[in-house]
């Protein structure tokens, strides 16, 4: 399968600040991809680059084999739900569906009407009077109605309460499950994505820290605990992501390609949330230590 998003050395700079730097990714098709990272990590920038809302400062990006927003054909292939789910406050729900129908040759009016019906939205209602959740649903309906091959959702549930979040994501998965759509969605909350994503990208400080299918990521990471010792004494091929020590014991999250054979260690599985948090923390306070470790290794 070809990549839905492929980037190489991609970077975007605002004045002197890099919002995204040195980003090389290849996201295969057919996944629900979670883009995780703290606020300001570059998630929105990456999504705006993928939809052509921004032009890269360095590097290149290809989406479904084409340059983002290169023409009507490319635009038709990508559905984008921008942050805060923008809709026209003065236009009604029905107007928005008409907008979708008028501007998208492949518009699926049946799907859009059915969704609006299921969501119990009043077609005559002005979009400005909708709740945050309803607005997100309306914007998602427009993005889905154009029958995209790739759906990009920027913080789709950020403004929703926990119940609405769950409903939105459930509804999204049901809709996506029907067709052959790849999805990339971002959130700064891992718990939102854990349930629905089978591919994860962790973005911290404008850089990609981790990317891969969830199963592979879990298989390649282990929690080691045992008597206290220097992380540097670990064998080659074992990379420490995070470590905590008490007087007598060390606990380390490690990335390893092969089995850990040292009988001194107790090996246990690591949860996805813990794994990603470790990567985010590492980039934050522990960046210095990480570099140090890599040199020793």
């Amino acid at each position: 399968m070809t990549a839905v998003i492929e980037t190489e050395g991609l970077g975007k700079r605002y004045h002197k600040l890099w919002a995204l730097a040195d980003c090389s990714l290849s996201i295969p098709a057919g996944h629900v991809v979670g883009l995780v990272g703290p606020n300001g990590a570059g998630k929105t920038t990456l999504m705006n680059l993928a939809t052509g809302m921004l032009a890269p400062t360095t590097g290149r990006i290809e989406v479904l084999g084409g340059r983002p927003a290169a023409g009507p054909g490319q635009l038709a292939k990508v559905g984008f739900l921008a942050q805060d789910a923008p809709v026209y406050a003065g236009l009604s729900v029905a107007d928005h569906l008409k907008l979708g129908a008028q501007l998208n040759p492949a518009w699926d009016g049946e799907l859009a009407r059915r969704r609006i019906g299921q969501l119990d939205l009043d077609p005559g209602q002005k979009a400005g009077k909708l709740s945050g959740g309803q607005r997100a649903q309306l914007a998602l309906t427009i993005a889905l109605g154009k029958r995209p091959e790739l759906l990009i959702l920027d913080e789709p549930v950020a403004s929703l309460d926990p119940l609405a979040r769950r409903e939105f994501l459930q509804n999204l998965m049901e809709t996506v499950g029907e067709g052959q759509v790849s999805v990339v969605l971002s959130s700064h909350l891992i718990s939102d994505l854990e349930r629905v994503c089978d591919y994860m990208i962790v973005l911290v400080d404008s850089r990609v820290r981790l990317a891969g299918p969830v199963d592979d990521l879990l298989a390649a990471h282990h929690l080691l605990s045992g008597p206290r010792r220097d992380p540097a004494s670990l064998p080659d091929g074992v990379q420490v992501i995070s470590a905590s020590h008490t007087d007598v014991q060390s606990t380390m999250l490690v990335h390893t390609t092969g089995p850990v054979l040292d009988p001194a260690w107790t090996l246990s599985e690591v949860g996805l949330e813990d794994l990603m948090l470790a990567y985010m923390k590492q980039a934050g306070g522990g960046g210095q230590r990480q570099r140090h470790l890599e040199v020793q290794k």
Partner: protein
Amino acid sequence: MIWLTWRQFRAQAITAAAALVAFAILLVVTESRMSSLFAASGITGCHGGACPGAATRFLIDLSSGQTFPLLPDGANAYVILYFLSVLIILAAPAIIGIFWGAPLIARELESGTHRLAWNQSITRTQWLAVKLTLIGLAAMAVTEALSLLQGWWAAPIGKAVGLGGSASIMSEGRFGIFIFPTHGITPLGYAAFGFALGVTAGLLIRRAIPAMAATLAIFAVVQFAVPLWVRPHLIPPSHTIATLATANVTPNGGPSIAVTATVIPGHPGAWITSSGAVNATGQPVTAPAACKSAIPRNLNPGGTRAWANCLASHGVRVSASYQPVSHYWPLQLAETGLFLALALALAWYCFWRLNRRLT
């Protein structure tokens, strides 16, 4: 895209249509008194020297004796109507730039809806092209409609002024700084320019209210600068040097000679763009010493005449640059073309910026 443009523009379009209808009703209702006074004035069929008198009489009759219920007593309804109707055409392109142009992109950027609009299966170029074309044409149509209505209503005034009549503010001919840009085809150019200026300001400033203010400021400067520094030179003016007449001299109580050409012999109705006192060889001159004693102390006609005679007898003549009446339509074309070209340049810049310098 046409549907979306209309849907988003609908409220403004209805407002403009309502304003246009109100303007038309006001002029249609008041036109009958104008045409009956004109018919009674004797201007039609007048001969030679009788015409300016009849014309002035008509204008004086028109601008007196009629008050409107809403206006204070003594306010001359037709003077106010004439003034307001010209002002509205003059202001229409600015208003269009402010309320149609500036928010066109700025409002989308402000509310973030550009991220919705620009992610449908239509390029930004298409999106902007449809909006600029449809709303730009509407801007030109509305402004030109206002102009044609006013031109029809004020035709008797124009005729009377053309025959040399003058009363109150009804004294500007076709080249007048308020009349020229509000009649003929120039309103088309101003409307297109005002709209494109607003759109560009909105795209650059990205916020509607400041963009509206910038549009107004820039448009006002352009509207002020063009008649002073641009229009006189759009077509090379003609030049003439004529004998000094009393009418050319304005006493100013000093030795400098305030000489203004008021008419160009053989070219009635010409627009005099600049004039001054010159000697027989065409060099600018000051008052000859011999005439210093003749400088009039006040505005009495006899003194002015004596002074003018003294200046003329010492070889002072009047030089003038002017645009003859035959230049009216070429000038109209040139000014309209200038503004249409500016509007297209601004539109081109908007397309370029929308695609290159992404949000």
